[in-house]
């Protein structure tokens, strides 16, 4: 309980400290919304943006707080001093003398808390409306029963600090590179053109071999935006079983 209290007060402190400093080098932090005061549908909605399924209310509040912490860490936009965690407050006005520390994420996100500006080439990015949840977070899995993929992000983020606009440009370049890669590989492109599903894992390793490192979630978004069907290993296993029986001209019915 004491730890939680420390974390809570630390957050408030840093928020305040930021505003007072007025250095301009630090990106202002949005204070954490009052998740515990929200009703369940709103919590569900917010979690859904991160691909997290509905949970018991208490857990949703905790999860949202966790997400907020991951996404709202101090980071200098000039990245002179690379900060992956909170900085020690210069004037500890509270009685705690020991440095306050947050739970450190395993792989620090490279994205600053500022929302990324929308990319011009929207076709390359996910067609979904919530483009601010561009899957840079490690621990947040999609709902497991969802064939829309259970993707756990491994460390694909760069470790150097980069600005928001640099991050956008890099991502755009990567997506262009992926597109070019597919186009220039006749076997692969032939599969795509015949609507045959691509193995996500295989594609990712081919891309890696070609020097294009793209996270699974981002790759998935890209394939979706191109209406290219993909399969995970599990799906491939099930699909093989069904492929023998099913004709290509399948359908969906409503009764």
């Amino acid at each position, binding site marked *: 309980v004491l730890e939680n209290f420390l974390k809570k007060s630390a957050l408030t402190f840093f928020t305040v400290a930021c505003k007072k400093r007025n250095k301009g080098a630090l990106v202002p932090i949005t204070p954490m919304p009052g998740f515990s005061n929200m009703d369940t549908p709103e919590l569900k909605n917010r979690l*859904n*943006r991160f*691909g997290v*399924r*509905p949970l018991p209310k208490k857990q949703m509040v905790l999860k949202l707080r966790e997400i907020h912490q991951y996404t709202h860490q101090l980071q200098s936009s000039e990245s002179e001093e690379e900060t992956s965690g909170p900085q020690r407050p210069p004037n500890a006005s509270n009685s705690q003398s020991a440095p306050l520390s947050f739970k450190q994420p395993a792989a620090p996100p490279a994205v600053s808390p500022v929302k990324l500006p929308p990319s011009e*080439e929207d*076709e*390359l990015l*996910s*067609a*979904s*409306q*919530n483009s601010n949840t561009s899957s840079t977070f490690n621990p947040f899995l*999609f*709902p497991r029963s*969802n*064939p*829309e993929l259970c993707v756990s992000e491994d460390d694909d983020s760069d470790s150097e600090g980069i600005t928001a606009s640099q991050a956008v440009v890099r991502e755009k370049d990567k997506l262009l590179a992926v*597109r070019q890669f*597919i*186009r220039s590989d*006749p076997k692969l*492109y*032939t599969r*795509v*053109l*015949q*609507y*045959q*599903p691509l193995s996500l894992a295989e594609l990712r390793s081919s891309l890696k071999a070609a020097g294009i490192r793209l996270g699974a979630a981002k790759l998935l978004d890209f*394939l*979706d*935006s*191109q*209406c*290219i*069907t*993909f*399969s995970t290993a599990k*799906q491939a296993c099930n*699909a093989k079983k*069904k*492929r023998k*029986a*099913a*004709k*290509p*001209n*399948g*359908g*969906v*019915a*409503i*009764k």
Partner: protein
Amino acid sequence: MVVEVESFYERRIGQHNAGRHRGGAKRTSGRGPWEMVLIVHGFPSDIAALRFEWAWQHPHISRRLSHVARRSRKESSLQFHWRVLSNMLRVAPWSRLPLTVRWLKQEYRMDFAPELQPPLHIPLTFGCVRAKTKPQQECKEQDERQVERCVLCGVFVKAMDRLSCFHPSCQMVSHLICLAKHFLKADPSHLLPVEGKCPGCHHSVLWGSLIRHKNGCHGDLEEISSSSSQSHWTDELQL
């Protein structure tokens, strides 16, 4: 009438209606005879159809449908599902698939709302269908077939890369990739073409139709008038 969304493959549809003991879907057995009113067909793979079905059944948790409002009180189940479908056809990853929306029952049919029109290549049609019994087509052996050149690049075309136009008397033959690039000139940010003009006969053709033609399943569904069949239309599916 209870509305449910199901995916079906030609083989399964008969089983599905026959109930569980013949391998049909578990959920529907014991709930009375089902009336199939609407189908979406043309999925090029099982995975695509399954994913579509899942999203249609779970629009509130589908990643791509977060913009679709929940069912309102005045909406019937069918109206809601129709609205969800209308939205799905307009977004990725479904908006470029060669799908057809087909009403099977006249009394239930609905039109797309003006603000939710589907992509131009997705037809809305009506009528029961069944798989055709195809007469054995002259299936030229690969060796017997004369060597053909791609109309776009001039290089010889191997069977596995070969695309031909399905319009009668059109002789157009090309590489898959050549024709795709040709169709995508007007749409350079995409990898998968949707439609284009055949360089041979200049008819507008759907990419999906060309692929079906290549795989030998173009035109393998035929309409049946409801008066002609006493038995359930699914019983007449030939597989």
